[in-house]
C-alpha cells in the first residue's frame, strides 16, 4: 500500500502525509515515508528501511492524526487530496479494529461469523471454538453482543477480524480495555499470524515495544520520525518524540 501527497482538512486540523508506503510480501518489503515536516528524520540514515517488517506501529499524542491516517489507509474516509494505491489489495483484504468497536445488534456468534456470511463462506465450527475460547467468550456465544463488557467487546472485534484472514489489519487502540493476560495472548497471536501485515495505534509503549518492528511517530498531522521500533524509542531524534515518550 502506498499513499502519496495525502491531505485531509478539518476545521482545526490538517493531516498532511507526503508519502507512506507499506508493502509486505515474501519477496520484497518496502517501508517508506516522506514528510514536508521541518526536521523530518526519515531522510536521516539512523533509521534504515531494509528489514522484513510485518507489524508496524503509529504513535503520537492525542489529536495528531493517527486515526485519520488509519481510516484513510483502510478506505473508510477519503482524503481531501492525494492518492491511495492499494497495489492489488481489495476492500476484502483490509480491515480495521476500533477502540470502541461496532458490534451488530445480534449474538456474539453472529457477530463473529458476519465476515464469513457476507463472503458466503461456511463457518468452520472448530476454528470458531478456538477463537471464542481464546477470547474467553465460549460460554457467551449466544449472548447479545452489546451486553459484553468493554474488554470482551474488543476481544470479539479482534477475533472477528482474525476469522476472515485479511492481509492488512489496522488496530486503533484495540487493546485499551483488555486485561494484561488477554493483551499478551493477542500480541502472541498477532506475531504468529503469517501473511498478515499489522498497523497498530497504541499509547501503550509496552505493546509497541513488544510487538511492533517498525514505528512511525506523528505530530500535528505529519509523520515526523520513523524507523525500527527499538532505535526510535531508545534514541528519539526530534524534540516532539522525546517529549511524548516522557509522558507515556
Amino acid at each position, binding site marked *: 500500500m502506498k499513499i502519496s501527497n495525502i491531505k485531509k482538512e478539518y476545521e482545526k486540523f490538517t493531516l498532511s502525509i507526503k508519502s507512506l508506503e507499506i508493502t509486505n510480501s515474501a519477496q520484497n518489503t518496502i517501508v517508506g515515508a516522506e514528510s514536508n515536516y521541518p526536521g523530518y528524520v526519515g531522510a536521516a540514515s539512523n533509521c534504515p528501511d531494509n528489514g522484513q517488517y510485518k507489524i508496524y506501529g503509529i504513535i503520537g499524542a492525542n489529536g495528531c492524526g493517527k486515526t485519520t491516517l488509519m*481510516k484513510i489507509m*483502510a*478506505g*473508510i474516509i477519503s482524503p481531501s487530496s492525494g492518492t491511495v494505491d492499494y497495489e492489488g489489495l*481489495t*476492500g*476484502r*483484504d*483490509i*480491515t*480495521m*479494529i476500533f477502540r470502541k468497536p*461496532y458490534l*451488530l*445488534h445480534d449474538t456474539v456468534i453472529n457477530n463473529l461469523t*458476519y*465476515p464469513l456470511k*457476507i*463472503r458466503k463462506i461456511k463457518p468452520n465450527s472448530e476454528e470458531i471454538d478456538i477463537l471464542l475460547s481464546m477470547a474467553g467468550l465460549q460460554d457467551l456465544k449466544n449472548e*447479545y453482543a*452489546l*451486553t459484553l*463488557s*468493554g474488554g470482551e467487546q474488543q476481544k470479539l472485534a479482534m477475533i*472477528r477480524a482474525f476469522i*476472515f484472514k*485479511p492481509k492488512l489489519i489496522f488496530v486503533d487502540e484495540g487493546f485499551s480495555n483488555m486485561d494484561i493476560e488477554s493483551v499478551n495472548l493477542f500480541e502472541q497471536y498477532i506475531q504468529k499470524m503469517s501473511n498478515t501485515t499489522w498497523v497498530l495505534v497504541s499509547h501503550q509503549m509496552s505493546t509497541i515495544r513488544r510487538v511492533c518492528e517498525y514505528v512511525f511517530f506523528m505530530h500535528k498531522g505529519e509523520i515526523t520520525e520513523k524507523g525500527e521500533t527499538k532505535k526510535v524509542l531508545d534514541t528519539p531524534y526530534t524534540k516532539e518524540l522525546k517529549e511524548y515518550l516522557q509522558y507515556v
Partner: protein
Amino acid sequence: MNIVEQETIGIIVLTLQMTLLATAMSCVIGIPLGLLLDKASFPGKRVVVLINRTLMAAPPVVIGLVVYLILMRNGPLGFLGWLFTFEAMVIAQTILITPIICGIVYTASERSAKNIRAFATTMGANKIQTEWLVIKELSNEIYFAAVAGFGRAMSEVGAIMIVGGNIRYHTRVMTTTIALLRNRGEINQAVFLGIVLMIIALLVQVIAGALRRRERRTDENF
C-alpha cells in the same frame, strides 16, 4: 344501536384498510427517502431537512385542504374523480405521515449509519450488503417510525373529513364517526368506538413489540 352492529364493522374495516395502505405507502416512500437524505450531500440539504421537520408537524386540515384543492373538479388532478373517495383519504394520509416516517428514519440514520457503513467497509461488505446492514441495524427505529405513522394515520380526523366527506358506507371511518356521534349527542356509541380505536392501537403496539428486535443494552462495565 344499529351503528354498533353491521355498519360499525364496515367502519372499522375501512379504517384499517385506509390506515394500513397509507402506512405501507408512506413506508415505501419515507424509509428510503430518510436513508437517502442522510447519505446524500447536496446544496440546500439543511433546507430540505427543515421542510421535512415542518411537515412532520403540519396541521392535518391544511394537508386536507391542499389535497382537496388538487383533487377538486377544477384542480390539477380533478379528472381522476377521486374527491370524496377512499383513494383521496389514502393520499391525504400518505402525505401526512410520510414526513413523519422519513424524519424518524433520517434522525436514526444520521446518528448511526455512518458507523455502520464504516464497520461494513472494514468487514469488506459490498454496497448492497452495506445498505442492507444499515436497514437491518436500524430495524427497531424503522419499526418505530412505521408504528408512529400508523398511529398518526389512525387517529387522524381533519384531513380525511375534508377530502373524504364522511359519507356513510363510503368514506366514513372511526374518527369521523366519533366526531359525528358526538355532534348527534350519541355519546355512548362514540365512547364505544373510541374504546375500539384504543384497543386497535394497543394491538398494533403488541404486534410491533413482538416483531421488533429484542435489544438488551447495558451501560455496566463488568
